[in-house]
């Protein structure tokens, strides 16, 4: 392709549509009290939600509890799903709210923590050089606020569109774009500071 400007792996719309139909049908059965359908949905979402919550909360010991709290809401409130969004957006939205609630108990900062972010640049050189680029980036992202972490995670790992992320986080679309923009700017600054280590 000219200029090498093709987008990343675009989701297959047909497959996505069918997966959505399967999940909608499963959720309908869950709403009717079908335990087997619920457990199928649970197993399908467990890896994705675990990754999302682990990155969002940064407290591995709390992930399972929040995940189970979220899936319990899915079990109890499945009949309130109105089909206005995808099932996956609805479930992630529940998990996101549960995670934020848990983070409040941990007294986690809800805004970008500039001081914490900047202080990581002063880490020992030897340690920095031993770590891989991905680990470094994950650490830097982990020092951002939960809202910024969520936007990055939902975009880069889970492949959500910005409108879907706005639904999950219950915020305006422009807020999603702004959070991503600021997070990228800070990561770019980090990468340029550490360019020699990372190359």
């Amino acid at each position, binding site marked *: 392709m*000219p200029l090498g400007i093709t987008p990343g792996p675009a989701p297959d719309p047909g497959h996505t549509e069918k997966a959505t139909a*399967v999940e909608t049908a499963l959720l309908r059965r869950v709403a009717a009290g079908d335990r087997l*359908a619920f457990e199928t949905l649970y197993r399908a979402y467990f890896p994705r939600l675990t990754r999302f919550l682990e990155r969002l909360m940064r407290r591995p010991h709390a992930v399972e509890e929040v995940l*189970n709290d979220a899936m319990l809401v899915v079990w109890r409130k499945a009949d309130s799903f109105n089909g206005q969004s995808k099932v996956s957006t609805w479930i992630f939205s529940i998990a996101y709210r549960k995670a934020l609630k848990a983070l409040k108990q941990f007294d986690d900062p809800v805004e970008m923590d500039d001081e914490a972010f900047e202080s990581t640049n002063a880490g020992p050189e030897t340690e920095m050089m031993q770590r891989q680029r991905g680990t470094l980036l994950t650490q830097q992202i982990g020092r951002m606020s939960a809202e910024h972490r969520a936007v990055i995670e939902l975009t880069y790992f889970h492949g959500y569109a910005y409108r879907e992320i706005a639904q999950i986080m219950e915020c305006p679309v422009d807020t999603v774009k702004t959070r991503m923009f600021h997070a990228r700017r800070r990561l770019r600054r980090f990468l340029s500071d550490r360019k020699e280590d990372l190359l």
Partner: protein
Amino acid sequence: MSGRILSFIKSPHQKVQELLPWFLNGTLEHDDATLVEEHLRSCTGCRSELDCLRALQSSYAQSELAPDAEAALARLRPRLTEPAAGSRPRRPARRVPPRTAAMPGWQVAIPAWMKVALATQFVLLFGLGWTVLQSGRMAPEFHGLSASGAPQHAAGNVVVVFDQAAPQREVARIVRAAGGRVVDGPTESNGFVLAVADGDLKAALARLRAEPGVVLAEPLQVPPSR
């Protein structure tokens, strides 16, 4: 105040800068994607930024977790049967309005205006049904294709989710026994889309639902695009 005048109107360059992460993950809608593609042809800065984002994504997207769903699910199961605090029962019985004590059940008081409305509705429905029936008789060629037995939903008309433990051979047997063929799947929830001849749909669904290895079998209803 700094005295700066803030502009809330974004330039095309700023708009594209904001959209790049979603251009990269392939989820932009057509208009946004076109805007980005056209801008990238002439902006080396944005192309360079896209390369950085690509590197970021590939570094970040690795998952190091190997979570155990079964153990976590086992811990959740006892909570599924607990009633939610302050919640109503899961499947509340439909409330039947109490009958008037002085009347038998078939003589529930109906206001006169409602009787007129119901009668009018009945006449209209009857007329509509008659019209549809007549138009059907006048266009027999429309039904010619289905009469041949060809499935009208070659793209799939049944959603089936199999038990995760069901072996592939068993899945194939169940699909064959139901007279279907797989046109899509599996999805992450082990769901498949089958194509079944329309005339056999009801029987195929009944057969699938009777199989112990089938979690769910429903007619396919693809939700409307947002």
